[in-house]
């Protein structure tokens, strides 16, 4: 590591020592501690946590596609109480910032989670508004500007920590959603969550996923993610965590050039359990090669 570089970034008042975070649902601290020192990360974003345990979907839950993957895990999680009791103490010792991704089927669900987290050492909250919402008939909160604003406003009113809202890319106009969420008081944005995809096994003639359709992630989707980060960064003045298909340090730099302040590594951690560390080192190499001293300098170097 180069001493002259300052990799730190500020996200809604919280300083991450570097811009590398772990995308929700693709990183489990204990498991990855087998392969890396967690304190090397800018922050750990844990998998979506709800107010009560969720069982998730039947199997098969995952499938590979050309340069990507599908998942229909269905947000299986042990609930916030279990998280606070079993996972948080481990994370507190890991020497990195703790960002909790929050799942919910109703606004009340979300609020219950953030209230329980208010008294903890969690640094940032990431609100996943791609969840199916039961009250409005299954339409994701993230697909209408009104719903997205409403859930943001209410959750913000109940939370102590800064609130990042993670947007769904499966919308006609991402900027409209981002603006609605910003006006409703979000302290930052994460984008993008998974696209929606499907794969059919031509031999068995069945959908590969038990749930038929699922979230589509990985390097295949990167151009959509870069485009959305760029469009939103032009229009909204909030810190952005960019993600979607980042596999290398140059991919990370591409998101920062597009306007991201930090990035998350998702599917890449399945392709290579040390991906976060490799990406950090490659980003440092990129910065040295191009004479960048800070992450902000990369961002400002974008020529359009």
């Amino acid at each position: 590591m180069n001493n002259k570089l300052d990799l730190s970034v500020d996200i809604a008042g919280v300083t991450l020592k570097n811009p590398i975070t772990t995308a929700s649902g693709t990183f489990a601290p204990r498991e990855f501690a087998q392969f890396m020192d967690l304190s090397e990360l800018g922050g750990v974003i844990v998998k979506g946590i709800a107010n009560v345990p969720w069982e998730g979907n039947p199997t098969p839950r995952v499938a590979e596609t050309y340069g990507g993957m599908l998942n229909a895990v269905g947000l299986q999680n042990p609930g916030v109480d279990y998280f606070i009791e079993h996972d948080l103490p481990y994370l507190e010792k890991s020497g990195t910032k703790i960002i909790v991704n929050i799942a919910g089927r109703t606004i009340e669900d979300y609020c219950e989670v953030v209230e329980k987290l208010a008294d903890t050492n969690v640094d940032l909250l990431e609100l996943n508004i791609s969840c199916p919402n039961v009250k409005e008939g299954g339409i994701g909160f993230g697909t209408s500007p009104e719903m997205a604003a409403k859930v943001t406003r209410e959750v913000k009113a109940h939370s102590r920590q800064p609130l990042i809202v993670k947007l769904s890319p499966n919308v006609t106009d991402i900027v409209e959603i981002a603006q609605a969420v910003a006006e409703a008081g979000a302290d930052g944005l994460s984008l993008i969550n998974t696209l929606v995809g499907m794969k059919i096994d031509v031999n068995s003639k069945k959908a590969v996923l038990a749930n038929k359709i699922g979230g589509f992630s990985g390097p295949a989707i990167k151009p959509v993610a870069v485009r959305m980060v760029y469009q939103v960064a032009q229009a909204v003045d909030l810190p952005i965590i960019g993600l979607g298909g980042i596999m290398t340090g140059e991919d990370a730099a591409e998101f920062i050039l597009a306007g991201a302040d930090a990035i998350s590594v998702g599917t890449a951690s399945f392709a290579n359990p040390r991906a976060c560390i490799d990406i950090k080192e490659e980003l440092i190499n990129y910065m040295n090669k191009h004479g960048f001293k800070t992450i902000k300098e990369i961002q400002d170097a974008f020529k359009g």
Partner: protein
Amino acid sequence: MGAKLENGVVISNDQIAKDIYSMFIKAPNIANSVEMPGQFINLYPKEKHTILPRPISICEVDSKEETIRVVYQVVGDGTGQFAKLKREDEIQVSGPIGNGFDISGDHREHLLVGGGVGVPPLLELSKRLKGNVTVVLGFRDEPYLIEDFEKYGAKVYVATESGKHGSKGNVLDILKQEDIKIDMAYSCGPKPMLKALNSWCQEKDIPVQVSLEERMACGIGVCVGCVCKKKDSGNKDGWSYKKTCTDGPVFMGSDVIWDE
């Protein structure tokens, strides 16, 4: 001890039956960390359009040579890439993963039942077991690894669907015909076979350990993609989802919810 990630080096990679390859990989950290037979490794395909690791059972481990042996069938893109690997090529590997077969008990009469690509992990198991080992193996057409089992002193029965080798039929047919003494059964193979074996063992009151297979993404206990239903007080229906990769792949047959 935990899983390791390393660049394995291919020592050899030979075809041993139609579409079946046997590969020895030098991977010292992983070879020295294997704790139980029935654990597996993840092999990472090199071509960039394939992004997920492929879980493959450890067939044999040689801690002196620091090698892992895997025996795998070419079924798709990833295993197709593995088949092209040559001596001295590198391949990324993580492992060992999972809870393998429990051999800590004092059973003496062991029955090992394998089907297809479920056969390989039974080889390391048969090496490590103390007592009498009977191995019943089912294949579609062409058997493999038979001599390897015999080399380690196991009594081997073979069934093939086509009847070309061994007796025509499946492993259950053999179990019903032969009179094998069994204290503990161990099995790996297609789910229908495991299910039938489990019922048969239940009738005879024989404990059976089964190694399950599920579609995996991470292969290291992170994504919760690979779950299976295990009996416990986890939910109102008396089961909870367990990760096949790290909670399994081996479970007691009596703990598994089979009804799917």
